[in-house]
């Protein structure tokens, strides 16, 4: 695909901004978490675009590591959400105010 790298980075920026909007607006913890995945994915897209432009494979290896770390993050994050649901019977982030002083 012979498209200027700028276009793909622009699409990546749009997807990242949508992820930020999701984290800020939604209060369902699982949907917020999915928005975080959206942001990670947007960053991956930019890295792949730059890797293609520079003809440098390190960018693709970084994306590989990001996907691995995201898998670990999802496992721990979803375990936390399950643990919170067990005690609060809700995953609305407004209800999780146990640390408020």
């Amino acid at each position, binding site marked *: *695909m*012979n*498209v200027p*790298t*700028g*276009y*793909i*980075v622009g*699409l990546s*920026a*749009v*997807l990242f*901004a*949508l992820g*930020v*909007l*999701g984290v*800020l*607006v*939604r*209060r*369902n913890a*699982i*949907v917020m978490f*999915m*928005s975080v*995945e*959206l942001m990670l*994915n947007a960053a*991956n*897209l930019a890295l*792949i*675009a730059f*890797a*293609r432009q520079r*003809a440098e*494979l*390190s960018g*693709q*290896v970084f994306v*590989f*590591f990001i*996907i*691995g*770390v995201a*898998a*670990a993050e*999802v*496992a*721990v994050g*979803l*375990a*936390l*959400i*399950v*643990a919170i649901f067990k005690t609060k019977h*809700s*995953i*609305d982030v*407004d209800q999780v105010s146990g640390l408020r002083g």
Partner: protein
Amino acid sequence: MTTDLLIFFGLAAVAIWTAVCTLLSRNAVYSALFLVLNFLTVAVFFLLLQAAFIALVQVTVYAGAIMVLFLFVIMLLGAERVETQPSLPWQAPVAAGLTVVLFGLMALAFALSPASPGAGPSPSDAFGSPAAVGEVLFRDYLLPFEVTSILLLVAMVGAIVLTRRPRPKETP
């Protein structure tokens, strides 16, 4: 060139539309399914950008394993639609404004950055193939690779510890 631009804008429209639907769906299951579509679209982008191996990893790990985990937890908790009334009525407009500001800043940074140095060297056909990525991964990035495996092990142990039942008091 024109065909490439048509493909790009079509795929970009699908990606943005699925992302918006992910945010707007009232039901978390629909959100997850739209997110799967988004990941698949991005995987097609990876394929078109000569990253075949990463595209396959994206489909198997992201669209496969991670989203199955999400759907499993959503259905396990029965938490499809637990959205209560917002306690802060001004939250959504302020969030939208902040997002627009963030996007404006990114556009500004992009506009002010020095022009990219042209197309650069044109990658060969083997660029991004599993063999090429594997060579770089196991030659230049072997230590980070091993650290990632330890990280995954720690995450697995952490997930098990976080979700296990509290052990009943042992009687002497």
